[in-house]
């Protein structure tokens, strides 16, 4: 498998959630999984945390670190992973983009 010239949008940003939420959103502990959530669900939750002032909550702090378009990219990335669940191989990053592009094509 080759390096895609342009990595999927949001992949690097989204990977910064993985320290707590697991590689590709597949949490191994009690913390929420992000894989399998819809883009809208994740985005709405992130916005709520960004704009409410519950500062004694670690995620409310984290959400305030990103602007809206970054939060959208992160949400989209995890939302897209859930479309291709099951492919958690080494190259999921590229496979998911490849497949998402294909899938979208077929759906339309």
């Amino acid at each position, binding site marked *: *498998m*080759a*390096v*895609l*010239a*342009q*990595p999927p949008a949001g*992949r*690097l*940003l989204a*990977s*910064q959630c*993985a*320290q*707590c*939420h*697991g*590689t590709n959103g597949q*949490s*191994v*502990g*009690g*913390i929420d999984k992000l894989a399998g959530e819809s883009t809208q669900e994740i985005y709405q939750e992130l916005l709520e945390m960004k704009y409410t002032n519950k*500062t*004694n909550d*670690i995620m409310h*702090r*984290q959400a*305030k*670190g*990103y602007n809206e378009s*970054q939060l959208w990219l992160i949400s989209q990335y995890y939302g897209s992973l859930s479309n291709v669940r099951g492919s958690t191989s*080494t*190259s*999921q*990053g*590229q496979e998911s*983009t*490849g497949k998402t*592009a*294909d899938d*979208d*094509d077929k759906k*339309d």
Partner: protein
Amino acid sequence: MNMISRRRFLTLAGASAALAVNSTILRAQSATPASVIVVGGGFAGATVAKYLRLWGGNSVTVTLVDTNLAHVSCILSNLVLNGSYKLANITFDYTALGQKYGVKFVQGRVEGIGVAGNRRSVTLANGQTLYGDRIVLAPGIDFDPIPGLDPNKIPHAWVAGPQTTLLQQQIAAMPAGGTFVMTIPPAPYRCPPGPYERACLVADYLKRNKPGSKVVVLDANPSIVAEPHTFTTAFTQTYAGLLSYRPGVSIVSVDSNARSVQTNQGLFAANVLNVIPPHRAGRIVANAGLIPPGSRWASVNPLSYESTLMPGVHVIGDSQGTGQPKSGHIANAEAKVCADAILRAFAGEQPDPAPMTNSACYSPITATTASWLTAVFAYDAGSGTMKVVPDSFGEAATPTKDNFEDMFDWARNLFADTFA
């Protein structure tokens, strides 16, 4: 966008994606894969090795070199000191990185790096030389020498492993009514809240197991470096009468047999003495000439973590000098930015112009409660540095049992995202 233009757009996007895939597959089939050698398999090095393969697949070969067959995590290692955790709980080998991602592992100590044409090389203590298109150095930290200090007698336990065991054994053997003295180095050092967390955990252990004992904290810094609210409360309330804290203490010398430390504020004798010396970048980084004069850390471009002094060589984790805190969580974050930038460089592209990193740290304050500290960092194009996003920075209001449980969930994911 109406249906037709949306479909057209998707078709075009699909076509161009397919083109890109085809051309890169062709390139990958005709050319040998690019190669990266990673030196050091701690939080930074293991993460960059994993993510280079996770994202780069077979377009890149990755060789990870570490002195040891397994890495002992400093994270949660303070829990070994009070007997609630074993080193085995926080020891990670490189089998999963090999099996799941195809990272090649070589055990050995890297002694030097070199340039061979447009390739880079690393030389191991056994004389072996490895070649790669790019090198990532992630060796953690090195300590300044202190006159009279013998770490085999006076452990720092600031690199986890045998040092942690030695300090744990000394604390377990301490008489009731004894004195534990620890010294904190000037910032920046690894894990800003770590020394204060240790002071709390040792105080908690002594309170329950060695009645009448005292903890003396000698801090080189002018005040508590991290979570001042949490630790001031812990020191002056939770551990009042048991723990005394002195800021602005600089060490003159140590007597490793008498277990005493001479400082600018006088002599402190201890039953157990824990001296954490000042830090600098790992020795290999200094040997390679990647540290500018007057600095202790590698000068790197925060978009890629490539050395500003030697192209093709990247430095991540505690050894790099971007000013971000030295923690395992953010070492993992930096490693992903570095992996992404290296893969883009192999594809002839510029790094992501706006990388983000974050830090989240849980600190046990007693045997059952913990606090946390967190921050998000964003690249600031004006200054060319990573800057903390103000509203994202904060500490827990109070140490709680919930935080203590969250700490293990956080650590499990961080460990898995790094080593598995």
